[in-house]
């Protein structure tokens, strides 16, 4: 304390760095993650803001002569190798076999796909975090909850998902309308069947955190369990949760598309990318673009989300950060 005057406060003092700034700095270093984040943002923008610029109605089915004129249009780039192709600048990606605009359908399909992914991820995250924290924090619950998790991990998920979709589709359709019913069903099913990994990771971290000094200090001043969990434990398990959140979006999108592809997902007039792919498979020899665009959209989205998850994992790990 005696040599305080020697220090020039302006040169010594550094503004305390926010943890999230450090994370962002590390994240930026991961080139794949940065590109992935940009691409994901671009897809989100195209899908959700695109319809504001591109006014075609994805549901509009032309009739009469217009139908003959508009159906089965090829994408505009088809002219390059086939000068006689039926194209129109009004429909850049062409139209489907009943004349609906492909680009508009891709946008509305993407909205559903991404929303399903986000919602299912949120559900599985809430379930996984709750079960993980409960199992890690309360010793009495640990055994039963982890056995329960193991049992869920041993279930054959895809077959059960298919069966469950078939069983509950009709009652939910009656309750919430066709679109709402299927949406609720798919989101719930994916959420309920994908929380196990999160729960395991969170439990492991909570077990380690529970013995740390700051938690013991909080307990010794009489903080109730609820507050210890909310104030001290949850913020510290945020990083694994965030990583599994990003990876959860990717797997939810893939699961939803797989269900739609097998014909157990969304109805054709309320398509997702998976459903668009499924509907076009029969005619893919004549119109390969109808398969390639939705498939590409799914793959690129999932790839970018996976890269974001990868970068986030590195950025949130303090051992790697700063290297």
């Amino acid at each position, binding site marked *: 304390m005696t040599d305080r005057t020697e220090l020039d406060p302006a040169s010594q003092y550094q503004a305390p760095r926010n943890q999230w700034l450090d994370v962002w700095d590390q994240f930026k270093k991961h080139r794949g993650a940065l590109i992935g984040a940009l691409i994901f943002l671009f897809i989100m923008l195209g899908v959700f803001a695109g319809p504001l610029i591109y006014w075609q109605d994805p549901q509009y089915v032309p009739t009469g002569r217009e139908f003959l004129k508009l159906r089965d249009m090829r994408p505009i780039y088809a002219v390059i190798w086939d000068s006689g192709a039926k194209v129109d600048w009004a429909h850049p990606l062409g139209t489907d076999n009943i004349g609906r605009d492909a680009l508009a359908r891709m946008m509305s399909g993407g909205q559903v796909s991404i929303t399903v992914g986000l919602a299912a991820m949120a559900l599985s995250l809430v379930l996984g975090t709750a079960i993980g924290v409960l199992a890690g924090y309360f010793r009495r619950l640990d055994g039963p909850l982890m056995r329960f998790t193991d049992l869920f991990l041993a279930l054959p998920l895809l*077959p059960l998902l298919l069966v469950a979709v078939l069983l509950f589709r009709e009652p939910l359709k009656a309750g919430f309308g066709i679109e709402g019913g299927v949406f609720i069903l798919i989101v719930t099913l994916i959420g309920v069947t994908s929380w196990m990994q999160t729960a395991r990771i969170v439990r492991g971290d909570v077990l380690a955190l529970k013995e740390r000094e700051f938690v013991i200090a909080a307990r010794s001043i009489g903080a109730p369990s609820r507050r210890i969990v909310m104030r001290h434990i949850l913020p510290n398990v945020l990083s694994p949760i965030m990583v599994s959140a990003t990876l959860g979006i990717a797997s939810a999108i893939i699961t939803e598309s797989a269900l739609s592809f097998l014909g157990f997902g969304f109805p054709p007039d309320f398509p997702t990318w998976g459903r668009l792919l499924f509907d076009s*498979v029969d005619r893919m020899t004549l119109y390969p673009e109808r398969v390639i665009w939705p*498939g590409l959209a799914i793959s690129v989205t999932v790839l970018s989300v996976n890269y974001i998850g990868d970068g986030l994992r590195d950025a949130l790990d303090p051992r790697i950060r700063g290297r």
Partner: protein
Amino acid sequence: MLNFTIRRLLISIPTLLFISLTIFLLLELAPGDPMAQVPLTVPPEVKQQMREALGLGEPMHIRFFKWIVQFFWIEPLNLFDNLFGTSFAEGKLRVISWQTRSPVMDIVAQRLPQTLTVVGVAYIVAIIIAIPIGVYSAYRQYSFFDNAGTFITMVGFSVPPFFSGVLVIVIFSVWLGWFPSIYDTTHRVTDWDSFVYQLKQMIMPVMVLALQITSQISRFMRASMLDNLNQDYVRTARAKGLTENVVVLVHVLRNSMIPVVTVIALGIPGIFGGAIITEQVFKVNGIGQLLITAIQANDLPMVQTLTFIFAVLIVLFNLIADILYGILDPRIRYD
């Protein structure tokens, strides 16, 4: 080790019971009625009798018990009879499919070889490709090969099989015309030409399945190698003057294989699940396709049996993975 194995075996029994109960209860809620196809002119009491003949009249717990007995006792007996020509199971009621009125297990036995050839070959191909990739990209971490490998495994992770399958069909059978797009399961290999045809029709499904599996295994292999490469025993081996080949391919590789072997075992049931989609894309009539048609036709016994077979596979390979880990790595034995 024996103790551990027995304990592990005992744990899997309640797991299997829970899973069978889940599957059974889920299907109990099914709105589908096997009598829906029966003409309206059939009087209700006859319908009731038909229902009972299908075993639907009794309360739920009795049916569950009977199903368990059928699945775990009568069907294995039938298998035994078929293998050794005995007749222990004669006259016992087997699990009957509502679609075809023939025993479910017979149909499964017909379909299983198709799935097994495609899935099995894909798995082996994937392992053969994945391990060298993993080893090399860990050894030259952050090299061009490693970065390219990471990107390709990421792509293999992210491209769903229903898209990669459709894409290879468009490229290789529509544009190039090299391979048939539909897998012909009636094809028999008798001579060289038919063998070549069999190879041709297997290439695309195997490629699609193998891409996914390779991505997972090579990623794991790489991580496991990286963990081991910085260990002290590696430095010791180098200090002793062993050649680099011996250090990497004998010392490090053997230790890195321990977790990878378990991952390979754990992945097998998942591959059967993934094969459902691949079979649908390439029209292979294996058990995945059987499951889909059974679900659509409301054939409850078939769906129950198939789902349960998938569950048994998962539990079985979990068990195998655990025991393998115990054998390979003495540190984690619990006794």
